[in-house]
């Protein structure tokens, strides 16, 4: 049976349609994906993302140990700051893409994907490097308040000064009396916050936010809108756009791989890959023909299969069909054209710069 977050009953009462995702019974939509998408782009949406996992590194070796298994560089951020990057295998394959919250050099929280909770915990524990590693995935409720009105909704509920909280920074504070980690992070391309609190207080926090957000047009939002929102800003989705057989370089995540920081797992393999040249690259595309490209559809060039669609959707904001596909580097340059095999019909596509959408 699928797992439930502490918010399950609240979702059902709010009219959510529940679906199984990565072993979790999660809300896919409430009023409708397009409605919720638009609310997040223009006002605000509240997501329950408690299915995400948390693994914590503690002790004098914590920072050093994590930096050895993380592609980005945790010495470049300060306490109270977060950083995105990948955990890689020796061959460069991505174990997971994660956000690491540096509470201090001796206390760092790794936020992992729902479907990778146990795999990541085992990987992290096996590479503890002298740090104390604890699996805290069931100890946290995580809510994402996202959208241009997020700060206006959250500020009256907390003593923390949100105007001083920069993107990818976080602080501890109470929200409506609930002790939280308040992080200015998200997965939608809008301004917003992710709040971590104890499971028993999750419902209280959700209700307080929904109540406070009423006047600002806040709506509950599900996984459907989360996916269309993230794809419009070309945020990668593990399992679609990368996996254990994909390196960060192939996934277009070279910007979170810091070769010059010293050794880390996967570094040598990726250096070799870089020197030899990539055989495929993840590229953003838009369709010129009607249709929607979906995960797994073939990419064609001169009638031959040359790649595969990783993610695709109809963009609610741009009203066009967008997606990410693995193609040979020769077809990855902006303006390159190729076709997507949509149920036997070749639909013409063009490589474009990502993100597809940028907030004003």
């Amino acid at each position, binding site marked *: 049976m699928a797992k439930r977050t502490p918010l399950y009953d609240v979702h059902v009462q709010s009219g959510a349609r529940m679906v199984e995702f990565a072993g979790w019974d999660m809300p*896919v939509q409430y009023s409708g*994906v*397009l*409605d919720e998408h638009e609310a997040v782009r223009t006002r605000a949406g509240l997501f329950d993302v408690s299915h995400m996992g948390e693994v914590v590194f503690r002790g004098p070796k914590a920072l050093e140990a994590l930096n050895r298994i993380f592609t980005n560089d945790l010495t470049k951020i300060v306490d109270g700051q977060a950083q995105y990057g990948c955990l890689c295998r020796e061959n460069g394959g991505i174990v997971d893409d994660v956000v690491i919250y540096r509470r201090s050099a001796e206390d760092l929280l790794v936020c992992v994907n729902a479907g990778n909770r146990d795999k990541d915990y085992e990987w992290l524990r096996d590479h503890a490097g002298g740090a104390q590693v604890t699996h805290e995935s069931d100890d946290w409720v995580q809510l994402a308040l996202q959208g241009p009105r997020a700060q206006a909704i959250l500020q009256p509920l907390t003593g923390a000064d949100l105007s001083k909280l920069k993107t990818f920074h976080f602080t501890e504070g109470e929200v409506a009396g609930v002790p939280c980690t308040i992080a200015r992070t998200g997965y939608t391309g809008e301004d917003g916050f992710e709040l971590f609190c104890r499971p028993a207080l999750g419902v209280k926090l959700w209700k307080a936010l929904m109540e406070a957000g009423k006047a600002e047009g806040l709506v509950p939002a599900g996984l459907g809108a989360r*996916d269309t929102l993230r794809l419009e800003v070309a945020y990668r989705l593990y399992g679609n756009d990368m996996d254990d057989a994909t390196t960060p370089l192939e996934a277009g995540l070279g910007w979170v791989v810091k070769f010059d920081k010293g050794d880390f797992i996967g570094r040598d393999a990726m250096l070799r890959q870089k020197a030899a040249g990539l055989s495929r690259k993840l590229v953003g595309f838009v369709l010129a023909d*009607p249709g*929607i490209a979906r995960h797994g559809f073939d990419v064609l060039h001169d009638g031959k299969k040359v790649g595969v669609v990783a993610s695709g959707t109809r963009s*609610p904001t741009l009203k066009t069909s967008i997606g990410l596909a693995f193609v040979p580097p020769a077809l990855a340059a902006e303006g390159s054209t190729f076709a997507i095999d949509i*149920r036997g019909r070749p639909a013409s596509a063009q490589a474009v710069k990502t993100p597809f959408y940028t907030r004003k």
Partner: protein
Amino acid sequence: MNFPDDLKYTRDHEWARVQGAKVTVGITDFAQDQLGDVVYVELPEVGDVVKKGETFGVVESTKAVSDLFAPISGKVVEVNGPLVDAPETVNEDPYEEGWMIVVEASDPKELTELLDAPAYRKFVEEEQE
């Protein structure tokens, strides 16, 4: 959920409105609700021949792709062209403005195999359990 009495239904959640030999086809209120926001519709062209039980098009929501199955065999004599630019019509008005094609039935006997409204309602209720 609304299942008009004057329509016939398939177990694939299409409806058929029979007017002589002409049969108008769309998807049911239940189907549009299950799909969620419809963002793309692919329909055949006038003159194409469809066969009962076989796909005649595709309807897609933000998350799901769903084939459209012909409730009856025959030639397509009309297509709801405006749906392509306004696929949300399928959600808003599945039985009127959201119609998809009109088929000239080649074998009207096939109509007897379709469900009437009470039978379809029962089918939907059983499927939801």
